[in-house]
């Protein structure tokens, strides 16, 4: 029994690859099916994170079809593999929209891949659902951002560490991988910390290349920086594979979370699943969802996922939940609009409501960002997170950070009278 869903998944991939190769065949089925695109790397560096998201979308498509499909039609997922190659993302996106005529695309992980496909979606008026937490400073009318903006992840995490419960940190180490997301996030964080009275002497910023594996020096530096007499905390925007050796080195050098807590924005259940977490107990992560959330919806989703993938060991994580929300919202918007027309669906998306796996009512705002809850979890010895803090309600995603002077003036609102993603003035000025 277990192997059947996996086979179906495998067939789906094979079918996707075939249709991607000979896309001429695609036109035949147009009337009976609604096509959506899945644009996640299945090979290369990012395959580690993105393959899971591809499977999540396929699972939800199966589920939707089993419940009668959409507008009386079956939904067909077209899977392509951009192979962690940023220019290839743009090519594959063009292929999905132009040749396959997909109604919406679910995809991308790194900010650089999103930036690469953005012009294509805007030129061809496509619809992208982007499920990963990111640096903000963007609002395209062709993208719905279902991951966290900085004010839904980074800022609350730092505020928590500043609070009495979080250890009242006064000195900060900002560690990151050297690319756009960490650099922008740290720019926002530095401005935020300065606004809270933290001087630049109390902030250390350090960047490492992708896949950095020798963390000895940096961990020693952090130790030295922390011995200046003020409670120190580390904010990590280290991405991907490099996290595992980083945490191993922390554990081996005996830095415990009680002395120097590390809060990470890119480490979830999936990243911890290759790691012995006993020495890391107490280090933190900030997300909008954790697998350990205690709700009926969550239990059902985890069970469905583990059955679909055929393994009890597989974990779920925040970007998967973001895809869950995005996919439900898209389906609802299509039903409401009665069509898969991109403009109609986009209008129907605004104000769309979905019950998240964590039991909150999550809403899509007119700036294309979600209102979601924020949670902070501590790593446990079983590789799960224990939620130590969460917002009472939902937090509205802010496309343009208030802490960067030039972006605090900008507004993103795709409804009248603004109809703009980055304007200081509304496009339509009311005349009466």
């Amino acid at each position: 029994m277990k192997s059947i869903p996996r086979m179906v998944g495998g067939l789906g991939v094979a079918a996707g690859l075939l249709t991607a190769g000979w896309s001429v065949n695609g036109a035949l089925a147009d009337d009976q099916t609604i096509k959506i695109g899945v644009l996640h790397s299945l090979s290369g560096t990012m395959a580690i994170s993105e393959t899971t998201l591809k499977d999540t979308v396929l699972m939800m498509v199966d589920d939707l079809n089993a419940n009668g499909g959409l507008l009386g039609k079956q939904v067909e997922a077209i899977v392509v593999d951009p192979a962690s190659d940023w220019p290839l993302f743009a090519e594959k996106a063009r292929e999905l929209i132009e040749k396959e005529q997909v109604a919406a695309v679910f995809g991308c992980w790194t900010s650089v891949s999103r930036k690469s496909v953005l012009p294509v979606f805007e030129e061809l008026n496509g619809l992208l659902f982007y499920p990963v937490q990111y640096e903000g400073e963007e609002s395209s009318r062709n993208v719905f951002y279902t991951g966290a903006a900085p004010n839904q992840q980074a800022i609350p995490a730092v505020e928590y560490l500043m609070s009495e419960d979080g250890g009242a940190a006064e000195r900060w180490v900002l560690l990151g991988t050297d690319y756009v997301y960490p650099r922008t996030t740290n720019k926002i964080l530095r401005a935020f910390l300065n606004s809270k009275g933290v001087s630049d002497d109390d902030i250390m910023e350090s960047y490492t290349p992708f896949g950095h594996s020798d963390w000895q020096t940096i961990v020693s530096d952090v130790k030295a920086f922390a011995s200046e007499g003020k409670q120190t905390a580390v904010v990590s925007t280290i991405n991907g594979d490099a996290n595992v050796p980083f945490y191993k080195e922390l554990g081996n050098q005996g830095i415990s979370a009680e002395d120097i807590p590390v809060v990470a924005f890119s480490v979830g259940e999936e990243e911890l699943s290759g790691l012995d977490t006993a020495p890391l107990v107490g280090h933190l992560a900030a997300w909008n969802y954790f697998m350990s959330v205690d709700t009926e919806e969550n239990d059902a989703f985890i069970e469905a996922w583990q059955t679909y993938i055929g393994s009890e060991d597989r974990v779920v994580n925040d970007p998967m939940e973001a895809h869950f929300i995005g996919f439900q919202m898209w389906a609802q918007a299509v039903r409401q609009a009665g069509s898969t027309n991109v403009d109609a669906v986009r209008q129907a998306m605004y104000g769309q409501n979905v019950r998240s796996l964590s039991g909150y009512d999550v809403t899509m705002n007119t700036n294309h960002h979600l209102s979601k809850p924020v949670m902070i979890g501590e790593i446990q010895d079983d590789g799960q997170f224990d939620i130590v803090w969460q917002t009472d309600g939902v937090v509205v995603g802010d496309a343009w950070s208030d802490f960067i002077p030039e972006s605090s003036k900008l507004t993103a609102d795709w409804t009248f009278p603004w109809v703009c993603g980055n304007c200081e003035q509304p496009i339509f000025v009311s005349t009466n």
Partner: protein
Amino acid sequence: MHLFARVALVAVALWLATAANAEAIEDMVQALGAKESAEKIAAIDALASSGDERALGILQAMLDRRLFRVKADDRVVFADKSDGGYQLTDPLTGEALGEVGRRDVKKVSVNNKLRGKLRGTIGGMTLLSPEAEARAAAADAVFKTPNAAILPILDQAIEAETDASVRDRLERARAAVQIETSKESAVRQAAVETLAQFTDPDVRTLVASLLVASDDGFVEADDAVRAAATETLATIDAGIARWTLIGNLFQGLSLGSVLLLAAIGLAITFGVMGVINMAHGEMVMLGAYTTFVVQEIFRNHFPGGFDYSLAVAIPAAFVIVGAIGIAIERGIIRFLYGRPLETLLATWGLSLILQQAVRTIFGPTNREVGNPEWMTGAIELAGGVALTYNRIWIIVFALVVFAGLMILLARTPLGLQMRAVTQNRAMASAMGIRTGTIDALTFGLGCGIAGMAGVALSQIDNVGPNLGQGYIVDSFMVVVFGGVGNLWGTLLGATTLGVVNKFLEPYAGAVLGKILVLVAIILFIQKRPRGLFALKGRAVEN
């Protein structure tokens, strides 16, 4: 009568007291499950000072995350995972309360602050433990959460202590408590002066915290104490600077040993045979996956012998990856000798195929390779310098592999034949050496060693399909820098690059440090195109 009445009265009073106590203790345990951490902290303090002998066990259970709240009636209980959910026990009576489902109970959450508090409190209660290790841990916990109430017990513990190193830690803890809680500046000053003997970042943090400016002057109000603190800080800093140097050297050697391991197989295939093997990194990766498979077998069949899994993985990786190497040589590379560009392209394509094959078989996510017990943790030197065991063992392993390879090449018939074939193929063939077989064996040897390197690297890096890519450039760099065809050059090249990198990194940062090293190598190669140890004589000509 009179006497009897008195006895009865005392008995009743005692009974009342214990009854009240029992009730109070139940309340305290119940309060541990409160929502607010302030209430939990109050309950921990109350429990610790209750003098009840069960308190220690309950607090320890809370720290071990065995304390749960039953959702139905809010009762605080011990819970242990069982097949269907959780097995509950009463924290005070130890009475079994039956089994409940996974979602019927909720863990009492313990955040970092509470964990520190618990460790400190438990530390205070175990300062007089009969085991030296427990006493040392207790002293460290007390050092981190100073509390005036603990002082008499600390004095008593120091009095009774026989182990010198534990006594040091106890004194360190006492000084910390005095600094944080004493009202007399003379006591604080003496405590600060005591701390000068500890070259330790934690102590530095504590002493430096006295000098931090606060709203009204400084954290430490007394001038004399601050002067003492400044002096102590200078002493500690001098000590830390010395130890940091040693730490840097170790880190450099460690990076060097990793580079050596990654490059030494390439020194055979590229250095000795002249094959530009772009799939070398994937040989390392296959070695790491072999470790994973071996460990899986151990986990499933011999969980007790897990600590010895690496001893099996090393020869297994050598044999398996070596065999793959021989297959590659016989299947692809032997048709491409003398055509370096084609070799480069073919092996690069091969590396992509191998990566995708591994991704298909084992999945795209990283695989968990555990560290055996003897490879976790670190030797803590003074000054916050930690020599981690996994890196120490990798340095040792790299040297052993290097020595083994030198012996093989210099002292065995196989090594002699390998050198003969690579130096003068025609003559070797004329002497009756089967050059084809020797080529295959040499290539297999290089790959097998890369496989063993993979076993070592699986202990410090991710085991994923991309593992090899991170090492291929570094490996070529080491071999070219050290001098193609010379193993001593590889050894010296790897060590030099490692140490230089680690001494540059603190000043230049990880990214710039790496760039600087690359630029230095380019300049060096301009000056000495054949690397550190250039081969001399006729071998150079072809």
